[in-house]
Protein backbone atom coordinates (compact mmCIF):
# COMPACT_ATOMS: atom_id res chain seq x y z
CA UNK A 1 0.00 0.00 0.00
CA UNK A 2 0.92 3.67 -0.23
CA UNK A 3 2.65 3.23 -3.52
CA UNK A 4 3.23 5.57 -6.44
CA UNK A 5 0.75 5.55 -9.30
CA UNK A 6 1.19 6.89 -12.80
CA UNK A 7 -1.86 7.39 -15.00
CA UNK A 8 -0.76 6.24 -18.46
CA UNK A 9 -2.30 8.01 -21.44
CA UNK A 10 -3.07 6.06 -24.57
CA UNK A 11 -2.50 7.54 -28.01
CA UNK A 12 -3.42 5.39 -31.00
CA UNK A 13 -3.01 2.19 -29.02
CA UNK A 14 0.36 3.20 -27.62
CA UNK A 15 1.39 4.68 -24.31
CA UNK A 16 2.12 8.38 -24.68
CA UNK A 17 5.69 9.68 -24.32
CA UNK A 18 4.74 11.83 -21.37
CA UNK A 19 3.57 8.73 -19.49
CA UNK A 20 6.91 7.00 -20.09
CA UNK A 21 8.64 10.11 -18.77
CA UNK A 22 6.49 9.93 -15.63
CA UNK A 23 7.14 6.22 -15.20
CA UNK A 24 10.88 6.87 -15.43
CA UNK A 25 10.63 9.53 -12.73
CA UNK A 26 8.14 7.45 -10.74
CA UNK A 27 10.55 4.50 -10.66
CA UNK A 28 13.26 6.69 -9.12
CA UNK A 29 10.88 8.15 -6.57
CA UNK A 30 9.64 4.66 -5.67
CA UNK A 31 13.22 3.48 -5.12
CA UNK A 32 13.91 6.47 -2.93
CA UNK A 33 10.74 5.92 -0.89
CA UNK A 34 11.09 2.14 -0.98
CA UNK A 35 7.62 1.59 -2.30
CA UNK A 36 6.17 0.16 -5.47
CA UNK A 37 5.58 1.85 -8.80
CA UNK A 38 2.13 1.09 -10.20
CA UNK A 39 0.46 2.13 -13.42
CA UNK A 40 -3.18 2.54 -14.37
CA UNK A 41 -4.00 2.19 -18.06
CA UNK A 42 -7.51 2.74 -19.37
CA UNK A 43 -8.23 2.15 -23.03
CA UNK A 44 -9.34 -0.21 -25.73
CA UNK A 45 -7.54 -3.26 -27.08
CA UNK A 46 -4.70 -3.12 -24.58
CA UNK A 47 -3.57 -6.73 -24.83
CA UNK A 48 0.09 -7.00 -23.92
CA UNK A 49 0.45 -3.32 -23.03
CA UNK A 50 1.92 -4.32 -19.66
CA UNK A 51 5.13 -5.48 -21.34
CA UNK A 52 5.91 -1.89 -22.22
CA UNK A 53 5.29 -0.89 -18.63
CA UNK A 54 7.56 -3.55 -17.16
CA UNK A 55 10.43 -2.07 -19.18
CA UNK A 56 10.03 1.01 -17.01
CA UNK A 57 9.93 -0.91 -13.77
CA UNK A 58 6.18 -1.00 -13.14
CA UNK A 59 5.45 -3.46 -10.32
CA UNK A 60 1.71 -3.70 -10.85
CA UNK A 61 -0.21 -2.61 -13.93
CA UNK A 62 -3.92 -2.01 -13.42
CA UNK A 63 -5.44 -2.42 -16.87
CA UNK A 64 -9.01 -1.43 -17.74
CA UNK A 65 -9.73 -2.57 -21.27
CA UNK A 66 -13.08 -1.81 -22.93
CA UNK A 67 -14.09 -0.38 -26.29
CA UNK A 68 -15.86 2.51 -24.58
CA UNK A 69 -12.62 3.76 -23.02
CA UNK A 70 -10.91 5.05 -26.16
CA UNK A 71 -10.87 7.86 -27.20
CA UNK A 72 -10.56 9.38 -23.75
CA UNK A 73 -13.68 10.82 -22.12
CA UNK A 74 -13.57 12.49 -18.73
CA UNK A 75 -16.25 10.73 -16.71
CA UNK A 76 -15.50 7.02 -17.20
CA UNK A 77 -11.77 7.60 -16.71
CA UNK A 78 -12.39 9.79 -13.66
CA UNK A 79 -14.71 7.20 -12.09
CA UNK A 80 -12.18 4.41 -12.54
CA UNK A 81 -9.18 6.35 -11.29
CA UNK A 82 -11.09 7.72 -8.31
CA UNK A 83 -12.32 4.32 -7.17
CA UNK A 84 -8.97 2.65 -7.78
CA UNK A 85 -7.20 5.30 -5.71
CA UNK A 86 -9.78 4.93 -2.93
CA UNK A 87 -8.93 1.25 -2.82
CA UNK A 88 -5.18 1.41 -3.33
CA UNK A 89 -4.53 4.60 -1.33
CA UNK A 90 -1.41 5.68 -3.19
CA UNK A 91 0.86 8.23 -1.53
CA UNK A 92 1.70 9.87 -4.84
CA UNK A 93 -0.16 9.93 -8.16
CA UNK A 94 1.19 11.52 -11.32
CA UNK A 95 -0.55 12.59 -14.53
CA UNK A 96 0.82 14.26 -17.67
CA UNK A 97 0.06 17.99 -17.85
CA UNK A 98 -1.60 17.37 -21.20
CA UNK A 99 -5.10 18.04 -22.49
CA UNK A 100 -6.07 14.68 -20.99
CA UNK A 101 -4.17 14.89 -17.70
CA UNK A 102 -5.27 18.43 -16.94
CA UNK A 103 -8.89 17.49 -17.67
CA UNK A 104 -8.82 14.32 -15.59
CA UNK A 105 -6.60 15.01 -12.57
CA UNK A 106 -8.62 17.95 -11.15
CA UNK A 107 -11.81 15.94 -11.36
CA UNK A 108 -10.18 13.06 -9.49
CA UNK A 109 -8.57 15.38 -6.93
CA UNK A 110 -11.92 17.02 -6.23
CA UNK A 111 -13.62 13.67 -5.75
CA UNK A 112 -10.84 12.49 -3.41
CA UNK A 113 -10.66 15.92 -1.69
CA UNK A 114 -6.92 15.82 -2.08
CA UNK A 115 -4.40 18.44 -3.16
CA UNK A 116 -3.34 18.71 -6.80
CA UNK A 117 -0.41 20.70 -8.11
CA UNK A 118 -0.60 21.82 -11.70
CA UNK A 119 1.96 21.62 -14.44
CA UNK A 120 5.04 20.68 -12.41
CA UNK A 121 8.49 20.95 -13.92
CA UNK A 122 10.29 19.11 -11.11
CA UNK A 123 9.49 16.64 -8.33
CA UNK A 124 11.74 16.07 -5.33
CA UNK A 125 11.31 14.19 -2.04
CA UNK A 126 11.91 16.22 1.11
CA UNK A 127 10.75 17.10 4.61
CA UNK A 128 8.38 19.86 5.60
CA UNK A 129 7.58 21.74 8.79
CA UNK A 130 4.22 23.45 8.96
CA UNK A 131 5.01 26.99 10.08
CA UNK A 132 1.84 27.62 12.08
CA UNK A 133 1.69 24.38 14.02
CA UNK A 134 5.33 23.32 13.95
CA UNK A 135 4.21 19.88 12.82
CA UNK A 136 6.86 17.95 10.93
CA UNK A 137 6.36 15.78 7.90
CA UNK A 138 8.91 13.35 6.46
CA UNK A 139 9.35 12.40 2.82
CA UNK A 140 6.76 14.59 1.18
CA UNK A 141 6.70 15.25 -2.53
CA UNK A 142 7.96 18.75 -3.34
CA UNK A 143 6.01 19.76 -6.41
CA UNK A 144 7.85 22.47 -8.21
CA UNK A 145 6.03 24.58 -10.76
CA UNK A 146 6.16 27.90 -12.53
CA UNK A 147 3.25 30.32 -11.99
CA UNK A 148 2.46 33.96 -12.73
CA UNK A 149 3.22 33.43 -16.39
CA UNK A 150 6.60 31.89 -15.56
CA UNK A 151 7.91 34.78 -13.46
CA UNK A 152 7.93 32.76 -10.23
CA UNK A 153 8.71 29.18 -9.30
CA UNK A 154 6.64 27.77 -6.46
CA UNK A 155 7.37 24.68 -4.38
CA UNK A 156 4.09 23.14 -3.28
CA UNK A 157 3.40 20.33 -0.83
CA UNK A 158 0.27 18.42 0.17
CA UNK A 159 1.09 17.44 3.75
CA UNK A 160 -2.24 16.18 5.05
CA UNK A 161 -4.07 14.59 2.16
CA UNK A 162 -3.17 11.52 0.15
CA UNK A 163 -2.54 10.91 -2.64
CA UNK A 164 -0.25 13.83 -3.34
CA UNK A 165 -1.46 14.55 -6.85
CA UNK A 166 0.47 16.33 -9.56
CA UNK A 167 0.29 16.94 -13.26
CA UNK A 168 3.74 17.12 -14.84
CA UNK A 169 4.69 18.98 -17.95
CA UNK A 170 5.59 17.01 -21.03
CA UNK A 171 9.26 16.85 -21.92
CA UNK A 172 10.74 17.85 -18.56
CA UNK A 173 11.40 14.38 -17.16
CA UNK A 174 13.76 12.08 -19.02
CA UNK A 175 12.42 9.00 -20.76
CA UNK A 176 14.66 6.26 -19.35
CA UNK A 177 13.65 2.62 -19.70
CA UNK A 178 15.47 0.16 -17.43
CA UNK A 179 18.22 -1.97 -18.94
CA UNK A 180 16.20 -5.07 -18.08
CA UNK A 181 12.40 -5.29 -17.75
CA UNK A 182 11.12 -6.33 -14.35
CA UNK A 183 8.76 -9.18 -13.63
CA UNK A 184 5.62 -7.23 -12.88
CA UNK A 185 2.03 -8.20 -12.32
CA UNK A 186 -1.16 -7.32 -14.20
CA UNK A 187 -4.45 -6.72 -12.44
CA UNK A 188 -7.71 -6.62 -14.36
CA UNK A 189 -10.67 -5.65 -12.22
CA UNK A 190 -14.30 -6.15 -13.16
CA UNK A 191 -15.03 -2.99 -15.14
CA UNK A 192 -18.69 -2.68 -14.20
CA UNK A 193 -17.70 -2.20 -10.58
CA UNK A 194 -15.86 0.95 -11.56
CA UNK A 195 -18.22 2.82 -13.88
CA UNK A 196 -21.84 3.93 -13.97
CA UNK A 197 -24.21 4.45 -16.89
CA UNK A 198 -24.21 8.21 -16.28
CA UNK A 199 -20.50 8.26 -17.08
CA UNK A 200 -21.43 8.00 -20.75
CA UNK A 201 -23.56 11.16 -21.17
CA UNK A 202 -20.99 12.65 -23.53
CA UNK A 203 -20.43 11.43 -27.09
CA UNK A 204 -17.49 12.18 -29.30
CA UNK A 205 -18.95 13.02 -32.70
CA UNK A 206 -15.79 13.84 -34.57
CA UNK A 207 -12.08 13.73 -33.88
CA UNK A 208 -9.08 14.83 -35.93
CA UNK A 209 -5.73 14.25 -34.39
CA UNK A 210 -2.72 15.21 -36.42
CA UNK A 211 0.01 12.61 -36.23
CA UNK A 212 3.11 13.61 -34.35
CA UNK A 213 5.80 14.14 -36.92
CA UNK A 214 8.47 16.25 -35.40
CA UNK A 215 10.27 15.74 -32.15
CA UNK A 216 11.39 19.08 -30.86
CA UNK A 217 11.58 18.22 -27.21
CA UNK A 218 13.93 15.36 -27.92
CA UNK A 219 16.33 17.51 -29.92
CA UNK A 220 19.65 18.44 -28.37
CA UNK A 221 19.99 21.51 -30.58
CA UNK A 222 17.07 23.79 -31.34
CA UNK A 223 17.07 26.68 -33.74
CA UNK A 224 14.08 28.81 -32.88
CA UNK A 225 12.74 31.62 -34.99
CA UNK A 226 10.62 34.55 -33.93
CA UNK A 227 8.67 37.32 -35.52
CA UNK A 228 11.99 38.99 -36.37
CA UNK A 229 12.75 36.26 -38.93
CA UNK A 230 10.29 38.18 -41.06
CA UNK A 231 8.81 35.60 -43.44
CA UNK A 232 8.16 31.98 -44.20
CA UNK A 233 10.89 32.13 -46.84
CA UNK A 234 13.47 33.38 -44.35
CA UNK A 235 12.56 30.50 -42.06
CA UNK A 236 13.95 28.20 -44.77
CA UNK A 237 17.45 29.31 -43.78
CA UNK A 238 16.75 28.15 -40.22
CA UNK A 239 15.65 24.77 -41.56
CA UNK A 240 18.80 24.61 -43.67
CA UNK A 241 21.11 25.16 -40.69
CA UNK A 242 19.00 22.74 -38.63
CA UNK A 243 19.42 20.09 -41.30
CA UNK A 244 23.21 20.29 -41.32
CA UNK A 245 23.50 20.49 -37.52
CA UNK A 246 21.01 17.69 -36.89
CA UNK A 247 18.86 20.19 -35.04
CA UNK A 248 15.12 20.86 -34.87
CA UNK A 249 13.36 24.13 -35.65
CA UNK A 250 11.23 25.78 -32.98
CA UNK A 251 9.34 29.04 -32.95
CA UNK A 252 7.87 31.79 -30.82
CA UNK A 253 4.15 32.30 -30.72
CA UNK A 254 4.42 35.49 -32.76
CA UNK A 255 6.12 33.50 -35.55
CA UNK A 256 3.40 30.86 -35.38
CA UNK A 257 0.64 33.46 -35.34
CA UNK A 258 2.22 35.14 -38.38
CA UNK A 259 1.96 31.81 -40.20
CA UNK A 260 5.72 31.33 -40.67
CA UNK A 261 5.57 27.82 -39.16
CA UNK A 262 3.08 25.35 -37.66
CA UNK A 263 1.79 25.58 -34.12
CA UNK A 264 3.38 22.26 -33.19
CA UNK A 265 6.76 24.00 -33.20
CA UNK A 266 5.76 26.63 -30.66
CA UNK A 267 7.97 26.83 -27.62
CA UNK A 268 6.88 28.44 -24.38
CA UNK A 269 4.13 28.55 -21.84
CA UNK A 270 1.42 27.61 -24.30
CA UNK A 271 3.71 25.52 -26.43
CA UNK A 272 6.29 22.94 -25.51
CA UNK A 273 9.02 23.10 -22.95
CA UNK A 274 12.50 22.25 -24.11
CA UNK A 275 15.92 22.10 -22.52
CA UNK A 276 18.39 21.34 -25.25
CA UNK A 277 22.14 21.54 -25.10
CA UNK A 278 22.02 24.54 -27.40
CA UNK A 279 19.18 26.94 -28.14
CA UNK A 280 19.67 29.46 -30.91
CA UNK A 281 17.02 32.19 -30.68
CA UNK A 282 16.69 34.03 -33.97
CA UNK A 283 14.71 37.28 -33.99
CA UNK A 284 12.97 36.41 -30.73
CA UNK A 285 12.45 39.19 -28.20
CA UNK A 286 12.26 36.88 -25.17
CA UNK A 287 8.83 37.42 -23.61
CA UNK A 288 8.34 35.67 -20.26
CA UNK A 289 5.94 33.23 -21.88
CA UNK A 290 8.57 32.24 -24.40
CA UNK A 291 11.32 31.94 -21.83
CA UNK A 292 9.14 29.71 -19.69
CA UNK A 293 9.64 27.04 -22.32
CA UNK A 294 13.37 27.40 -22.99
CA UNK A 295 15.24 29.11 -20.18
CA UNK A 296 16.65 25.85 -18.90
CA UNK A 297 18.60 25.32 -22.09
CA UNK A 298 22.22 24.59 -21.28
CA UNK A 299 23.46 27.25 -23.69
CA UNK A 300 21.61 30.05 -25.40
CA UNK A 301 22.71 32.06 -28.41
CA UNK A 302 20.58 35.05 -29.36
CA UNK A 303 20.68 36.57 -32.80
CA UNK A 304 18.86 39.88 -32.72
CA UNK A 305 19.14 43.27 -34.38
CA UNK A 306 18.24 44.93 -31.10
CA UNK A 307 21.08 44.87 -28.56
CA UNK A 308 18.49 45.53 -25.84
CA UNK A 309 16.17 42.62 -26.63
CA UNK A 310 15.26 40.96 -23.29
CA UNK A 311 16.32 37.53 -24.55
CA UNK A 312 19.90 38.77 -24.69
CA UNK A 313 20.04 39.01 -20.92
CA UNK A 314 19.63 35.25 -20.51
CA UNK A 315 21.86 34.38 -23.46
CA UNK A 316 25.44 33.19 -23.25
CA UNK A 317 26.28 34.66 -26.63
CA UNK A 318 24.57 37.51 -28.43
CA UNK A 319 25.08 38.18 -32.08
CA UNK A 320 23.87 41.66 -32.87
CA UNK A 321 22.70 41.71 -36.45
CA UNK A 322 20.07 41.01 -39.06
CA UNK A 323 19.04 37.37 -39.07
CA UNK A 324 18.96 37.32 -42.87
CA UNK A 325 22.60 38.31 -42.90
CA UNK A 326 23.82 36.20 -39.96
CA UNK A 327 22.15 32.88 -40.84
CA UNK A 328 23.87 32.41 -44.25
CA UNK A 329 27.21 33.25 -42.63
CA UNK A 330 26.68 30.62 -39.94
CA UNK A 331 25.81 28.03 -42.56
CA UNK A 332 28.83 28.94 -44.67
CA UNK A 333 31.27 28.94 -41.74
CA UNK A 334 29.97 25.67 -40.37
CA UNK A 335 30.36 23.99 -43.73
CA UNK A 336 33.94 25.25 -44.04
CA UNK A 337 34.90 24.22 -40.52
CA UNK A 338 33.31 20.79 -40.51
CA UNK A 339 34.88 19.69 -43.76
Amino acid at each position, binding site marked *: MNNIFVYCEIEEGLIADVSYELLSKGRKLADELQCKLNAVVIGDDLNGIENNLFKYGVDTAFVFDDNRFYPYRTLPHASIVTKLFEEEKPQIALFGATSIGRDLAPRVA*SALKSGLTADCTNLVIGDYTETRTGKEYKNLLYQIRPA*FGGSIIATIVNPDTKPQLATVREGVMKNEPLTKPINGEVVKHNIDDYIKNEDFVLD*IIERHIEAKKINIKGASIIIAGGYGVGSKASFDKLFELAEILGAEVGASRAAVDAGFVDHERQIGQTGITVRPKLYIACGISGAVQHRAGMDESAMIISINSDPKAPINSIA*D*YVIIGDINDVMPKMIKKYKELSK
Partner: protein
Amino acid sequence: MGLKIIVLAKQVPDTRNVGKDAMKEDGTINRGALPAVFNPEDLNALEQALRLKAKYPGSEIILLTMGPTRAAEIIREALYRGIDKGYLLTDRKFAGSDTLATSYAISLAIKKLSPYDIIIGGRQAIDGDTAQVGPQTAEKLGIPQITYAEEIVECNEANNNIIVKRRLERGIEIVKSTLPVLITVHSSAPACRTQNAKLFMKYKHARTVSELQNESEDYIKLQKDRAYLNIEEWSVDDINADIQLLGLSGSPTKVKKIENVVLKHKEVATIDSNENSIGKLMKELIDNHIIG
Protein backbone atom coordinates in the same frame (compact mmCIF):
# COMPACT_ATOMS: atom_id res chain seq x y z
CA MET B 1 -37.70 29.67 -22.35
CA GLY B 2 -34.08 30.42 -23.09
CA LEU B 3 -30.93 29.28 -21.36
CA LYS B 4 -29.62 30.22 -17.95
CA ILE B 5 -25.90 30.69 -18.30
CA ILE B 6 -23.47 31.34 -15.46
CA VAL B 7 -20.12 32.80 -16.46
CA LEU B 8 -17.16 32.25 -14.11
CA ALA B 9 -14.56 34.99 -14.28
CA LYS B 10 -11.57 36.03 -12.22
CA GLN B 11 -9.75 39.31 -11.85
CA VAL B 12 -6.02 38.69 -12.23
CA PRO B 13 -2.76 40.62 -12.24
CA ASP B 14 -1.69 41.06 -15.84
CA THR B 15 1.30 38.73 -16.06
CA ARG B 16 1.47 38.97 -19.85
CA ASN B 17 3.29 42.16 -20.56
CA VAL B 18 5.55 42.92 -17.70
CA GLY B 19 6.77 46.46 -18.24
CA LYS B 20 9.78 48.11 -16.65
CA ASP B 21 7.59 49.54 -13.87
CA ALA B 22 6.83 46.08 -12.60
CA MET B 23 10.47 45.00 -12.63
CA LYS B 24 12.50 45.24 -9.45
CA GLU B 25 16.21 46.12 -9.20
CA ASP B 26 17.26 42.49 -8.99
CA GLY B 27 15.52 41.62 -12.24
CA THR B 28 12.48 39.99 -10.65
CA ILE B 29 8.85 41.00 -11.02
CA ASN B 30 7.06 43.16 -8.48
CA ARG B 31 3.70 41.40 -8.61
CA GLY B 32 1.95 44.19 -6.75
CA ALA B 33 2.73 46.60 -9.57
CA LEU B 34 0.93 44.60 -12.23
CA PRO B 35 -2.43 46.02 -13.36
CA ALA B 36 -5.58 44.00 -12.46
CA VAL B 37 -7.47 42.75 -15.50
CA PHE B 38 -10.30 40.47 -16.58
CA ASN B 39 -8.66 37.05 -16.99
CA PRO B 40 -8.11 36.74 -20.78
CA GLU B 41 -9.69 33.32 -21.34
CA ASP B 42 -12.69 34.36 -19.23
CA LEU B 43 -13.33 37.02 -21.85
CA ASN B 44 -13.36 34.28 -24.50
CA ALA B 45 -15.88 32.47 -22.30
CA LEU B 46 -18.02 35.58 -21.92
CA GLU B 47 -18.14 35.96 -25.70
CA GLN B 48 -19.44 32.40 -26.10
CA ALA B 49 -22.13 33.16 -23.52
CA LEU B 50 -23.13 36.37 -25.28
CA ARG B 51 -23.40 34.50 -28.59
CA LEU B 52 -25.65 31.91 -26.99
CA LYS B 53 -27.84 34.65 -25.56
CA ALA B 54 -28.19 36.25 -29.00
CA LYS B 55 -28.97 32.92 -30.64
CA TYR B 56 -31.47 31.66 -28.06
CA PRO B 57 -33.87 34.49 -27.16
CA GLY B 58 -34.97 34.65 -23.56
CA SER B 59 -31.57 33.54 -22.31
CA GLU B 60 -30.01 35.10 -19.25
CA ILE B 61 -26.33 35.53 -18.34
CA ILE B 62 -25.14 35.79 -14.76
CA LEU B 63 -21.50 36.44 -13.97
CA LEU B 64 -19.99 35.05 -10.81
CA THR B 65 -16.60 36.02 -9.49
CA MET B 66 -14.81 35.37 -6.23
CA GLY B 67 -12.23 37.89 -5.12
CA PRO B 68 -11.54 41.06 -3.18
CA THR B 69 -14.05 43.94 -3.29
CA ARG B 70 -12.26 45.57 -6.22
CA ALA B 71 -13.12 42.53 -8.37
CA ALA B 72 -16.50 44.25 -8.88
CA GLU B 73 -14.64 46.02 -11.70
CA ILE B 74 -14.84 42.96 -13.90
CA ILE B 75 -18.56 42.61 -13.23
CA ARG B 76 -19.03 46.15 -14.57
CA GLU B 77 -16.88 45.32 -17.58
CA ALA B 78 -19.16 42.37 -18.26
CA LEU B 79 -22.33 44.43 -17.77
CA TYR B 80 -21.03 46.84 -20.44
CA ARG B 81 -20.78 43.87 -22.78
CA GLY B 82 -24.24 42.47 -22.18
CA ILE B 83 -24.60 40.24 -19.13
CA ASP B 84 -27.76 40.56 -17.07
CA LYS B 85 -26.49 40.37 -13.54
CA GLY B 86 -23.31 39.95 -11.52
CA TYR B 87 -22.48 38.37 -8.18
CA LEU B 88 -19.31 38.97 -6.21
CA LEU B 89 -18.28 36.34 -3.69
CA THR B 90 -16.16 38.24 -1.25
CA ASP B 91 -15.09 37.52 2.29
CA ARG B 92 -11.77 37.49 4.13
CA LYS B 93 -12.44 33.84 4.91
CA PHE B 94 -12.00 32.94 1.24
CA ALA B 95 -8.44 34.26 1.23
CA GLY B 96 -5.68 31.72 0.68
CA SER B 97 -7.95 29.17 -0.96
CA ASP B 98 -6.32 26.72 -3.33
CA THR B 99 -8.27 25.34 -6.27
CA LEU B 100 -10.11 22.75 -4.17
CA ALA B 101 -11.37 25.38 -1.71
CA THR B 102 -12.08 27.85 -4.53
CA SER B 103 -14.18 25.34 -6.44
CA TYR B 104 -16.01 24.44 -3.22
CA ALA B 105 -17.02 28.07 -2.70
CA ILE B 106 -17.92 28.61 -6.34
CA SER B 107 -19.98 25.43 -6.49
CA LEU B 108 -22.01 26.49 -3.43
CA ALA B 109 -22.73 29.88 -5.02
CA ILE B 110 -23.80 28.14 -8.23
CA LYS B 111 -26.12 25.85 -6.28
CA LYS B 112 -27.73 28.92 -4.81
CA LEU B 113 -28.28 30.21 -8.36
CA SER B 114 -29.84 26.88 -9.49
CA PRO B 115 -31.36 25.81 -11.76
CA TYR B 116 -28.96 26.54 -14.60
CA ASP B 117 -28.16 25.10 -18.02
CA ILE B 118 -24.56 26.08 -18.72
CA ILE B 119 -21.65 27.08 -16.54
CA ILE B 120 -18.90 28.60 -18.65
CA GLY B 121 -15.47 29.83 -17.61
CA GLY B 122 -11.96 30.25 -18.94
CA ARG B 123 -9.60 27.32 -19.28
CA GLN B 124 -6.94 28.86 -17.07
CA ALA B 125 -6.26 32.00 -15.02
CA ILE B 126 -2.97 33.72 -15.88
CA ASP B 127 -1.84 34.10 -12.26
CA GLY B 128 -2.39 30.71 -10.59
CA ASP B 129 -2.07 29.07 -14.02
CA THR B 130 -3.63 25.79 -12.85
CA ALA B 131 -6.72 25.26 -15.10
CA GLN B 132 -8.17 23.21 -12.22
CA VAL B 133 -11.09 25.29 -10.98
CA GLY B 134 -13.38 24.42 -13.92
CA PRO B 135 -13.16 20.60 -13.70
CA GLN B 136 -13.22 20.69 -9.89
CA THR B 137 -16.36 22.83 -9.87
CA ALA B 138 -18.03 20.42 -12.32
CA GLU B 139 -17.15 17.50 -10.07
CA LYS B 140 -18.61 19.23 -7.01
CA LEU B 141 -21.81 19.98 -8.93
CA GLY B 142 -21.94 16.42 -10.27
CA ILE B 143 -22.24 17.54 -13.88
CA PRO B 144 -20.19 16.71 -16.99
CA GLN B 145 -17.40 19.00 -18.16
CA ILE B 146 -16.17 20.03 -21.58
CA THR B 147 -12.70 21.56 -21.38
CA TYR B 148 -10.74 23.57 -24.02
CA ALA B 149 -13.86 24.66 -25.91
CA GLU B 150 -13.20 26.68 -29.04
CA GLU B 151 -16.77 27.03 -30.23
CA ILE B 152 -20.25 26.15 -29.05
CA VAL B 153 -21.63 24.72 -32.26
CA GLU B 154 -25.22 24.43 -31.14
CA CYS B 155 -27.40 24.00 -28.15
CA ASN B 156 -30.63 22.07 -28.38
CA GLU B 157 -32.86 22.95 -25.47
CA ALA B 158 -35.66 20.61 -26.49
CA ASN B 159 -33.33 17.62 -26.52
CA ASN B 160 -31.38 18.95 -23.60
CA ASN B 161 -28.00 18.76 -25.27
CA ILE B 162 -25.11 20.85 -26.54
CA ILE B 163 -22.47 20.35 -29.23
CA VAL B 164 -19.04 21.82 -28.63
CA LYS B 165 -15.79 21.91 -30.58
CA ARG B 166 -12.70 21.35 -28.42
CA ARG B 167 -9.13 22.39 -29.16
CA LEU B 168 -6.65 19.71 -28.09
CA GLU B 169 -2.86 19.76 -28.19
CA ARG B 170 -2.69 18.04 -31.50
CA GLY B 171 -6.11 18.37 -33.03
CA ILE B 172 -9.79 18.98 -32.46
CA GLU B 173 -12.72 17.03 -31.15
CA ILE B 174 -16.45 17.68 -31.50
CA VAL B 175 -18.49 16.39 -28.59
CA LYS B 176 -22.13 16.26 -27.62
CA SER B 177 -23.15 16.38 -23.98
CA THR B 178 -26.32 16.55 -21.99
CA LEU B 179 -27.25 19.72 -20.08
CA PRO B 180 -26.44 21.05 -17.55
CA VAL B 181 -22.75 21.11 -18.32
CA LEU B 182 -19.64 23.04 -17.35
CA ILE B 183 -17.52 24.36 -20.21
CA THR B 184 -14.01 25.87 -20.07
CA VAL B 185 -12.98 28.01 -23.00
CA HIS B 186 -9.61 28.02 -24.73
CA SER B 187 -7.79 31.14 -25.92
CA SER B 188 -8.21 30.04 -29.54
CA ALA B 189 -11.95 30.85 -29.27
CA PRO B 190 -13.07 34.19 -30.73
CA ALA B 191 -12.08 37.33 -28.82
CA CYS B 192 -14.71 39.10 -26.77
CA ARG B 193 -16.70 41.94 -28.27
CA THR B 194 -15.92 45.44 -27.07
CA GLN B 195 -17.99 47.37 -24.58
CA ASN B 196 -21.29 48.75 -25.78
CA ALA B 197 -21.68 52.52 -25.33
CA LYS B 198 -25.36 52.33 -24.34
CA LEU B 199 -24.72 49.60 -21.81
CA PHE B 200 -21.81 51.58 -20.47
CA MET B 201 -24.08 54.56 -19.83
CA LYS B 202 -26.65 52.30 -18.23
CA TYR B 203 -24.32 50.45 -15.88
CA LYS B 204 -21.44 52.79 -15.14
CA HIS B 205 -22.87 53.47 -11.69
CA ALA B 206 -23.40 49.81 -10.85
CA ARG B 207 -21.92 49.21 -7.39
CA THR B 208 -21.64 46.63 -4.65
CA VAL B 209 -22.70 47.45 -1.08
CA SER B 210 -19.05 47.73 -0.06
CA GLU B 211 -18.33 50.20 -2.81
CA LEU B 212 -21.26 52.36 -1.73
CA GLN B 213 -19.97 52.71 1.81
CA ASN B 214 -18.09 55.91 1.16
CA GLU B 215 -20.59 57.42 -1.26
CA SER B 216 -23.01 60.29 -0.67
CA GLU B 217 -26.64 59.76 0.32
CA ASP B 218 -27.84 60.98 -3.07
CA TYR B 219 -25.71 58.43 -4.79
CA ILE B 220 -26.99 55.65 -2.58
CA LYS B 221 -30.56 56.76 -3.27
CA LEU B 222 -29.95 56.54 -7.00
CA GLN B 223 -28.84 52.96 -6.48
CA LYS B 224 -31.95 52.13 -4.52
CA ASP B 225 -34.20 53.52 -7.22
CA ARG B 226 -32.55 51.50 -9.92
CA ALA B 227 -32.27 47.90 -8.83
CA TYR B 228 -30.23 46.93 -11.90
CA LEU B 229 -27.34 48.99 -10.55
CA ASN B 230 -27.03 46.70 -7.60
CA ILE B 231 -24.11 44.24 -7.81
CA GLU B 232 -24.90 41.54 -5.34
CA GLU B 233 -22.25 40.66 -2.79
CA TRP B 234 -22.19 37.27 -1.09
CA SER B 235 -20.20 36.30 1.98
CA VAL B 236 -19.36 32.88 3.40
CA ASP B 237 -22.66 32.92 5.32
CA ASP B 238 -24.69 33.75 2.24
CA ILE B 239 -23.59 30.52 0.59
CA ASN B 240 -23.73 28.49 3.80
CA ALA B 241 -20.14 27.37 3.47
CA ASP B 242 -18.27 25.36 6.06
CA ILE B 243 -15.33 27.63 6.89
CA GLN B 244 -13.16 24.60 7.59
CA LEU B 245 -13.34 23.86 3.87
CA LEU B 246 -12.27 27.38 2.85
CA GLY B 247 -9.12 29.45 2.92
CA LEU B 248 -5.91 27.95 4.24
CA SER B 249 -7.65 25.31 6.37
CA GLY B 250 -9.65 24.06 3.39
CA SER B 251 -6.65 23.98 1.08
CA PRO B 252 -4.66 20.74 0.97
CA THR B 253 -1.89 22.33 -1.11
CA LYS B 254 0.56 24.53 0.78
CA VAL B 255 3.04 26.84 -0.84
CA LYS B 256 6.34 25.89 0.75
CA LYS B 257 8.53 28.32 -1.09
CA ILE B 258 8.34 30.91 -3.84
CA GLU B 259 11.39 31.85 -5.84
CA ASN B 260 11.35 34.83 -8.11
CA VAL B 261 12.73 34.05 -11.51
CA VAL B 262 15.54 36.45 -12.22
CA LEU B 263 14.86 37.77 -15.65
CA LYS B 264 18.29 39.35 -15.89
CA HIS B 265 21.50 37.41 -16.10
CA LYS B 266 25.24 37.44 -15.41
CA GLU B 267 27.58 38.35 -18.23
CA VAL B 268 26.88 37.87 -21.83
CA ALA B 269 29.41 37.63 -24.66
CA THR B 270 28.51 39.93 -27.53
CA ILE B 271 29.62 38.86 -30.98
CA ASP B 272 29.85 41.03 -34.11
CA SER B 273 27.91 39.90 -37.11
CA ASN B 274 30.94 39.84 -39.43
CA GLU B 275 32.08 36.57 -40.95
CA ASN B 276 35.23 36.41 -38.92
CA SER B 277 33.54 36.68 -35.53
CA ILE B 278 30.80 34.25 -36.48
CA GLY B 279 33.46 31.82 -37.70
CA LYS B 280 35.24 32.04 -34.35
CA LEU B 281 32.03 31.34 -32.46
CA MET B 282 31.23 28.34 -34.67
CA LYS B 283 34.74 26.98 -34.10
CA GLU B 284 34.40 27.37 -30.35
CA LEU B 285 31.08 25.50 -30.41
CA ILE B 286 32.58 22.69 -32.44
CA ASP B 287 35.69 22.49 -30.23
CA ASN B 288 33.50 22.28 -27.13
CA HIS B 289 31.37 19.53 -28.69
CA ILE B 290 28.27 21.69 -28.57
CA ILE B 291 27.72 21.22 -32.29
CA GLY B 292 29.19 18.97 -34.94
